[in-house]
């Protein structure tokens, strides 16, 4: 387990919890780093692009990797421009692509996401695209130069857990890049389940931001993610789908 690291484009991380950017506050970032062990924190460029008052960049502790996102972008072109702005602001080369053409559900636009991934990967960004879990799109993103694939588990902010479980499992099975489950994870148990399935990491925000006791919930997420990861590495045992296994073998009648 000690050597079990999350590797994104050659960068190694001990933690498999990534803090999303939706609802930020100093308390949330502190809890995410101290209690959930987060080493990557998402930064919404549109909020970071702020004057002297409260800027999320002031909150980011040293040693934590910033993951600027392109929220607010409605197409590939806007996402590319926001990513370049993030680089100019000194946010480094990581970028999470978020492209939404829908303000109601905030569902990602897969087609535009592929285009933006191609452009930004060519410019040397470490591209982490947020996407609707579709195997064909995931393969296109791999070919476009993505560093990870970030499928949504359920609608953002919904805390509905792994609504897209079967499709995320297919991505885990078929894609060689880290699959980071993003959006919709509302409870530690859901994070644990995604990790058991073989997800490489979990991104969450609302689940922590709206918790009654933030530090306690942060540590619960850390333990859940670690437990799920251990279960995955150890290899899950026999899981019975329904009923009991027959004690007498069905094939006992066969002669040698």
């Amino acid at each position, binding site marked *: 387990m000690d050597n079990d690291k999350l590797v994104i484009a050659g960068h190694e991380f001990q933690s498999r919890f990534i803090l999303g950017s939706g609802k930020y506050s100093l308390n949330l970032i502190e809890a995410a780093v101290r209690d959930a062990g987060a080493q990557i924190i998402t930064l919404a460029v549109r909020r970071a692009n702020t004057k002297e008052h409260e800027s999320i960049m002031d909150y980011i502790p040293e040693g934590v990797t910033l993951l600027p996102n392109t929220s607010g972008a409605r197409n590939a072109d806007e996402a590319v421009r*926001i990513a370049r702005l993030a680089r100019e602001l000194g946010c480094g080369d990581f970028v999470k692509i978020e492209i939404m053409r829908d303000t109601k559900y905030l569902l990602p636009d897969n087609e535009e996401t592929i285009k933006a991934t191609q452009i930004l990967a060519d410019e040397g960004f470490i591209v982490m695209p947020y996407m609707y879990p579709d195997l064909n799109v995931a393969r296109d993103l791999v070919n476009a130069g993505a560093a990870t694939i970030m499928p949504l588990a359920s609608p953002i902010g919904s805390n509905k857990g792994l609504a897209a479980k079967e499709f995320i499992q297919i991505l885990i099975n078929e894609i060689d890049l880290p699959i980071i489950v993003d959006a919709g994870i509302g409870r530690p148990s859901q994070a644990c389940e995604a990790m058991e399935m073989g997800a490489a990491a979990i991104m969450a925000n609302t689940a922590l931001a709206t918790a009654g006791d933030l530090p306690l919930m942060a540590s619960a997420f850390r333990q859940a993610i670690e437990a799920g990861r251990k279960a995955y590495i150890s290899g899950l045992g026999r899981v019975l789908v329904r009923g009991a296994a027959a004690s007498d073998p069905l094939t006992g009648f066969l002669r040698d």
Partner: protein
Amino acid sequence: MTNDFFIDSKKLSAKALERKHQIENDASCRTNHMEYMPGMERIDSDILDNVIDTMNDYDYDRYTAGDVEAALGHEVCTIEDLKALLSPAAEPYLERMAAKARIETRKHFGNTVYIFTPLYIANYCDNYCVYCGFNCYNQINRMKLSLEQIEHEMKIIADTGMEEILILTGESREKSNVEYIGEACKLARKYFRMVGLEVYPLNSDEYKYLHECGADYVTVFQETYDADKYETLHLLGHKRVWPYRFESQERALMGGMRGVAFAALLGLSDFRRDALASALHVHYLQRKYPHAEMSLSCPRLRPIINNEKINPLDVHEKQLCQIICAYRIFLPYVGITVSSRESAQFRDGIVKIAATKVSAGVSTGIGDHESKYTGGERSEAEGDEQFEIDDDRSFDMMYRDMEKEGLQPVLNDYIYI
């Protein structure tokens, strides 16, 4: 229960008074409020019919406690549910509506609350809207800021730390033309991250121009969705054309604006029907323009200069809260703005339930930020206010108060690209 809106200024000439009384008292002297004036763009849209047909069918006395219970139990709020939540039958359920609204708000917005300020740059107006302090018959100090004065005001506001500004004018195309507003937007881009506009309705190509000048959000209040009532309140000027005003948000989106805001001025007409229509206006436009950001304001009538008696009639704080909760439950994703027309106490309470945006450091007058922000002498060269505000908290005080309420103030969530 009605407001007495008509006030005669002693400064009006006999001829002007005669004309005023004529249009007030004789509907046949007034223009057809459903007819577009020359130059007003027509667009192909079915949204108006969808909204108004549903509003016209709304018989809110038909809804029962059972309908309200069902609405509160549904995960997705339907239009029927919204009608139940806006009905008198929902009034005893206010606490449960607030609890549900708060859950939706927290899911979509977390603990954040946005702070902005309006900047009125001119108060000349060609319209006679009987309830408005800027109306052309109301004797007030009129003023239009020069570009230098606008920049001066913006600097003062920006120095407080504010990052979002809403530029407003009275509705006079002649005095405050599109180029003038465009120049104000360009200046605002220098000092603010987010520039919104609340000016007279424009054609889509004009919205496109103002977007290129730096504006990204357009607010137009429909005032009332009851076209017949509207006709009796908006007696003169281009604002009289009700359908052109209704289609403003759509034209703004066609012009490339990122977001649009809506409101009925509560207290003008039947507030339940107006609230329903406002929510449906957002709902149908969102379905047609899913990428657009939408927000709702919830203004109530306020007293104006020369008419202290104007009030929101039957829309008391409980009714206002009911409307805002119903908006939130039906439209979980939209921003909800509660302006300084409301008291500090109401605003502090409602941001914990459903509102996501408040103004601070507000002046609805012209060119008076320096005297208001620094406590200095009021200058003669200031324009009078559109209405009286209630909550006069400064930006700093609002910021601190929101933090005290356990909320995270956000100054900017925008990127102009």
